């Protein structure tokens, strides 16, 4: 990847499309600080952020894989991640979570695991969230819930989303990018995704 640069403000929902192997997940891990790039700069409110610890406080990463400890019960993992009671309540009161809160994470369906992981990230203090394939392999009920929650929370967060479920992403994003041949192209109109060879004619 070379010469990639883009902005994301609070309230933005930036979509990053790209074919398999184009480097979307790599880009996210570089932004999150768990992968090194030869040259990389990130600015927050005009301030250069160069410490990984600072970066991790500003940017959260929701992965396509489930990273929650599978041996813990849902009701134990929420207070572990949020010692603050107010954030805990928001998740415990979610109707899709309250019915599974006595189960171990490892016993949940993939959709339930990823929805729980998404809610933890959404309610975290990170002002910016990287969502790597939040919709992939999820049933419509969870996909709709996730879209709804992103829209609800955009007033206090910036989102950068990458997912091959492009219709779901297009419904909520207002800024589109395409990662192609190692560079990031700005897409003005979703139809350009066809011109650029990401979608079939």
């Amino acid at each position: 990847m070379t010469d990639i640069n883009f902005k994301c403000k609070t309230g933005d929902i930036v979509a990053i499309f790209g074919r398999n192997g184009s480097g979307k997940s790599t880009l996210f891990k570089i932004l999150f600080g768990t992968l090194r790039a030869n040259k990389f700069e990130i600015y927050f409110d005009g301030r250069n952020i160069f410490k990984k610890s600072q970066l991790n406080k500003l940017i959260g990463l929701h992965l396509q894989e489930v990273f929650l400890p599978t041996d813990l019960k849902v009701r134990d993992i929420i207070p572990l991640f949020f010692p603050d009671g107010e954030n805990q309540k928001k998740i415990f009161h979610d109707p899709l979570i309250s019915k599974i809160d006595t189960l171990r994470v490892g016993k949940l369906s993939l959709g339930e695991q990823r929805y729980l992981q998404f809610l933890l990230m959404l309610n975290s203090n990170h002002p910016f969230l990287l969502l790597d394939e939040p919709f992939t392999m999820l049933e419509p009920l969870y996909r709709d819930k996730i879209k709804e929650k992103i829209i609800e929370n955009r007033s206090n967060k910036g989102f950068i989303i990458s997912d091959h479920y492009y219709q779901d992403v297009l419904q909520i994003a207002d800024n589109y990018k395409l990662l192609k041949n190692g560079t990031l192209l700005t897409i003005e109109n979703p139809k350009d995704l066809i011109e650029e060879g990401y979608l079939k004619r």
Partner: protein
Amino acid sequence: MFGLFGKYYYDVTKYNILVSVVIAILTEKLTAGIVSFATVSIFISFLIYRQFKNVEYYFYINGGLSKKEMILKTVLINFLIGSITAVLITYIL
């Protein structure tokens, strides 16, 4: 914050204890197991954790911990526990 670190420490130390017990059995020396717990088994436990639970580091980093901080704390705690236990066993028993 200790709770989040506590979960990581518990998971890594489970592997450390397992490896140390195996070493103690193989060498037929309790002290070898304890010394191993404070030294080499710590590093083996990180390798095992990386092999089976590497993705869980994202849980802790997103939760506000740094990987370096978690590893250093675990090394320090287990080194202290292992060293103190080894000294007690050597001089008291």
